[in-house]
């Protein structure tokens, strides 16, 4: 790491010969600033990731000797029906979760006012993001329950139903996604509230002066300023969609017979229920790669825009 930035040294302030630190600080400062985070991250995250990649080449039950398999786990994945179901379901999650930044922004705009009690209202809007997903999944599962659920009461009143989405091969995933969207929207809402607060009012003021208002003002003056928030909101929604686990576990356990499983749940099932650590690691590796492809695309776009 060497700096290409030229340190701006003010001559008027130069009262004594420059210290070694002063001369090199422009090059050293970024290193010093990065070092603690990088050290912690390397030890507790990067190294374990490499270790897990290595594990994915083995057969291991968590206690005995690891048996080296080469790429056998990946070959098996390729033939594994459940794995492909999980990928397909993850794609549905991903598509649906792209609604979260949009709706999160809508709510943030709605709440970005200063009226009496708004802080409390915002805090309560935040609640779904905080509460344990296990109980959220629980009440949604009860909501869908074919015998005692509220859903069929509502449908019945409208002369429809009865339905039982959670034991339907086709419907289960969507029923779970419907429960998962709310916390993600709350998450995006926070990001946008922060983004709205960090906006430069002068830009908006200038645009208003130019006669822009409503939708045009929003599109041309506000949205560009919210880009950092949007970037993060999209990224965390991608992660949220691909990592979705708790709701699947509590609402369907991946069922019926794995038709609503997702990669994160399937990895969990293989690692902890089937006790196949190597195979679980292989699933995780694939999930990791999918995420990285997706994120690389966003990163590339963001950097291109920053460069421009």
């Amino acid at each position, binding site marked *: 790491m060497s700096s290409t930035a030229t340190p701006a040294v003010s001559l008027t302030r130069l009262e004594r010969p420059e210290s070694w630190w002063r001369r090199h600080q422009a090059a050293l400062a970024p290193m010093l600033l990065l070092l603690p985070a990088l050290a912690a991250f390397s030890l507790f995250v990067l190294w374990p990731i490499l270790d897990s990649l290595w594990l994915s080449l083995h057969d291991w039950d968590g206690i*005995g000797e690891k048996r080296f398999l080469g790429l056998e786990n990946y070959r098996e994945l390729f033939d594994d029906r459940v794995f492909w179901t999980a990928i397909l379901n993850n794609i549905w999650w991903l598509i649906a979760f792209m609604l979260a930044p949009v709706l999160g922004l809508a709510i943030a705009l709605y709440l970005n006012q200063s009226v009496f009690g708004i802080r409390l209202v915002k805090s309560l809007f935040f609640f779904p993001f905080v509460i344990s997903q296990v109980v959220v999944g629980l009440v949604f599962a009860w909501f*869908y329950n074919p*015998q005692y659920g509220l859903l069929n009461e509502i449908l019945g009143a409208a002369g429809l139903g009865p339905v039982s989405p959670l034991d339907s091969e086709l419907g289960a995933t969507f029923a779970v996604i419907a429960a998962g969207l709310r916390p993600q929207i709350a998450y995006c809402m926070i990001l946008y509230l922060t983004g709205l607060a960090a906006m430069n009012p002068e830009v908006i003021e200038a645009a208003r002066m130019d006669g822009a208002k409503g939708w045009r003002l929003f599109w041309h003056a506000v949205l560009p300023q919210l880009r950092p928030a949007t970037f993060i909101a999209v990224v965390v929604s991608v992660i949220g969609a691909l990592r979705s686990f708790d709701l699947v576990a509590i609402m369907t356990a991946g069922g*019926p*017979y794995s038709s609503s499983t997702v990669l994160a749940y399937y990895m969990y099932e293989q690692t902890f*229920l089937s*006790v196949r650590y190597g195979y679980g690691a292989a699933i995780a590796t694939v999930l990791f790669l999918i995420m990285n492809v997706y994120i690389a695309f966003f990163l590339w776009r963001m950097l291109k825009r920053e460069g421009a």
Partner: protein
Amino acid sequence: MQFWKPFAGLVLGMSLTFSAPLAAAELVINADASEPSLRKAWEGVVDQFRKENPGTDVKLNVYDRESYKRSIRNWLTAQSPDVVFWYAGTRMRQFSKPGLLEDVSEIYTPQAKQEFGPVATDLMSDAGKQYGVPHSYYQWGFFYRKDLFQKAGITEAPKTWNDFLGACEKLKASGVEPITIGSKDLWPTAGWFDYINLRTNGLKFHQELMGGTVPYTDTRVKAVFAKWNELLDKGCFMKNHASMSWQDSQAPLFQGKAGMMLMGNFITGNFPANVANDMDFFRFPEINAGVGKAEDAPMDALLVPARAKNKADAKKFLAFVMRPDVQTTLAAGTRQIPVNQKASVPDDRFLKVGQQLLSQADGLAQFFDRDTSEELATVGMKGFQEFMANPDRLDRVLEDLERTRKRVYQN
């Protein structure tokens, strides 16, 4: 590792300010007894042990069962508590074989062996050595609504498969769903597989199948599903079972919408007061007359990890839990059947029936998800669920099972 020493020393020093000081004779017990009645009973037993052994500082950490199952491999291979709760039979041997458990044969005196009987002693043994102490077990069978059976004109609990099919028809005719089941949890389906197999092919075949020596494409396995399919054909099971956990599936039974449920005795703790008196129990009916009647009776046990720090006190605790008086106290608190035959069974009609059933059974199985490999159990139970929803997919289900069996038991 040199590089880490100063850092480790620093953080260790800091961590000591957070964690409790280590006492000389600390006995750490990790338990999966999170059910309130179980937790209370065990806390009581641990208290009694403390009183009898004032020098020992006993710590009881309680976990829910799913978290516990995920963690036990970590504990046995990394840092071990002194005593762990676990299961008898195959699940124990899985850990004793690679040397993760301490041999506790010394506490199995001839008298203890006699009190526990050959079946329980055998379940705790691997290659002639004992690796733990069983503390309780319970029976499986049908918990049913006597009042609904009577209303449907069923005067006697079904004894044979034909009786059972007949009862199913009568219940349906009376407007009651015959059998409730929550297959979202997967394991409730395994009870059905176990019992139909035990009654059709007997315990010996069942054990061979669980041990991976018989293919799942065997005609005898297909016969099990054929019997199961008779119930599905008649519509004996409640619909939408895949959307319900076993807990959800109790509601129809308690509300009088369903007649019976194949379940473990622990369900009796959930009987609401208004229907408790209408609830009764019957044994899984006979299918093939010549086949001995074995039962599912999961047995829970205490083990000592090989890496335990305080093995002396751990063994002392295990010996303590073996005592008839302690097993009596435990059984009363946990509402289960004590394994020590000199201990007394709590005064509870279901447990009395259960104890009689198990003592006269032609052998015990531990339940599908404890008797076979975890991997096979996971694939199998998902397959059972799929079969119950789509009986026409049986061949594919069996192929999946067979492929898994071959991989798991190839070496």
